[in-house]
């Protein structure tokens, strides 16, 4: 049964395989860390407070039972897949008994909202500028823009974020520096909340865009330079098609194909969160959750987050692969 159906099936199979392997790797890595959630819990519970060694031993035992860590690695592995099968990640260990799904669900809208906007914005700006710069290679302004974008690109993100923070939060304090919205505000669909939401997202988005721009710019620039060599562009140029039309409908359209792939993957990858952004701007999201889960040895939560991320990225890759043959007949012919 050759053809697209077979392709679809085999690609789906590959998707399942990749997700399976990815989740297994996550399982192995998370469970091979030396961080023991029980010890973390005990340490946090007894920190600064009174400790009775005998009581600690008892506590250790009952926590082990509570967290379901008694059965050893094999049993945990089976339990992991059994839960995944019903779409459940079990309870978080560091916020027992709250389900992992609840914690992840609370954080994800923020992460997705922030990163989708900034990723798409960065992508559009970077590709537009890069495309122009790749096509009008002699243009001074664009050359300068290119150097500027590249100069910004290598500045460690942490620094960029912090400079923005100091500039707009302290030297010229016009923007809020912390949180996703104003403290003590009714969440909901009302103007005040939305304005507050926008206001709080400006700095995080701006920092992400500034730093991310260079990559897309650079990629698009070189892709366009490549496409420009293709015959059809030369023909179009000779045929008297206007430069702008060539750029838009001949050059950009073709150069964009790999960039769309990149966009899809970046969008998939947003489920990793933006850890430094969240840290610097105190923005709620999955990154902070992940770091704290790692610190707490909360396998369930780490696995929950990585699994969501693995599925999201795989799905993005799958989508691209399924759409690719429909867009590019040369690939289909194979």
């Amino acid at each position, binding site marked *: 049964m050759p053809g697209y159906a077979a392709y679809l099936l085999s690609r789906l199979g590959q998707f399942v395989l990749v997700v399976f392997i990815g989740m297994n790797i996550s399982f192995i890595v998370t469970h091979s860390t030396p961080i023991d959630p029980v010890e973390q819990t005990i340490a946090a519970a007894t920190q600064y407070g009174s400790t009775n060694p005998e009581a600690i031993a008892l506590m250790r035992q009952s926590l082990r039972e509570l967290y379901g860590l008694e059965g050893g690695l094999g049993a945990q592995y089976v339990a992991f897949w059994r839960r995944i099968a019903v779409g459940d990640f079990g309870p978080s260990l560091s916020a027992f008994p709250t389900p992992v799904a609840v914690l992840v669900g609370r954080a994800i809208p923020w992460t997705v909202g922030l990163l989708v906007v900034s990723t798409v914005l960065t992508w559009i700006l970077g590709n537009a500028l890069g495309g122009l710069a790749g096509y009008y290679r002699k243009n001074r302004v664009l050359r300068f823009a290119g150097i500027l974008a590249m100069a910004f690109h290598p500045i460690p993100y942490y620094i960029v974020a912090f400079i923005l923070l100091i500039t707009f939060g302290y030297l010229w304090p016009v923007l809020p520096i912390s949180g996703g919205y104003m403290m003590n505000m009714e969440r909901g669909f009302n103007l005040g909340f939305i304005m507050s939401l926008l206001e709080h997202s400006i700095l995080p988005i701006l920092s992400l865009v500034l730093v991310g721009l260079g990559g897309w710019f650079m990629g698009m620039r070189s892709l366009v330079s490549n496409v420009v060599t293709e015959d059809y562009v030369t023909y179009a140029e000779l045929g008297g098609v206007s430069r702008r039309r060539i750029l838009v409908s001949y050059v950009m359209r073709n150069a964009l194909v790999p960039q769309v792939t990149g966009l899809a993957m970046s969008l998939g990858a947003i489920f990793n969160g933006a850890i430094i952004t969240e840290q610097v701007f105190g923005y709620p999201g999955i990154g902070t959750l*992940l770091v704290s889960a790692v610190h707490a040895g909360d396998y369930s939560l780490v696995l929950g987050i990585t699994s969501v991320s693995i599925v999201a990225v795989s799905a993005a890759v799958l989508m691209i692969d399924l759409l690719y043959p429909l867009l590019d007949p040369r690939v289909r012919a194979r």
Partner: protein
Amino acid sequence: MWRILRDLFRHNRAFAVGMALVFFVVVFATLSLFSPYPPNDSFVVPPDLPPSWAYLLGTTSRGQDVFWLLSFSIRNTLLFGLTVAFISRILSLVIGLVAGYLGGVMDRVLMSINDTFIVIPLFPILVLFYFVMRDRMSWSLLALMMACLGWAYDARLIRSVAMSLRTREFTETGIFSGMSMRQVLVQEHLPYVLPIVFSTTMNNLNWSIGLEVTLSVLGFTDINTPTIGVLIYWANQHTALVAGIWWWIAFPVLLVVIAFVGLFLLAVSMNEYIDPRSRLDRVHG
């Protein structure tokens, strides 16, 4: 080879400037060999001094001379980035070209491996890896680990170009001329993917150094090896930005930017040189 470089240097201003900047950074990094202070020692000079003739780039709150500290840091950071970039470029080139050329089952297998690497979330893996490795975690191990995690995306990019190269007739000519797969890939296809390799190298460098900084800022690296990340880590621990010790941050950032702009200009001019279109232009003209 030398002639090409000389010509580039003479006629291509971007190349000349890039070369000069990179040379500057390399010289700076080499200076680390002559540092009067071991890189990890603190309070060898008075702390918190702004740039002056005695301390060209000022001193840190840890009593380190920023000038010498920076020479170690930039050296290690660039070596780190280049190591990651080099290893991961080789991986992505080999896998991308082979998968694109062979297609079929082999492509499916390679891309499955590739995709697994793409979908595994990097950050938690690196952090967990740090915990698993504990005291053995080092600069080189991190570089190796990141190289192994950093090739997949570009391999996919290269594969897509290789796939379209595979359908071009000159590939058939090569095959019917009796070229081996290696020959076709290296001699026929490689020139077409080199521009991508160059620009992804820049991205990869940026990515690896950025990730190193991120991990360092969060404290997930070996802080005994001075790198830009570790430098920022310490500056951050001393709230240097708020405390007004701007030279602790500004000069390292400036140097990183110089290094990158230099490398970028080199990459662009090299790209222009190896780029099929400009190569054709050149031979035409």
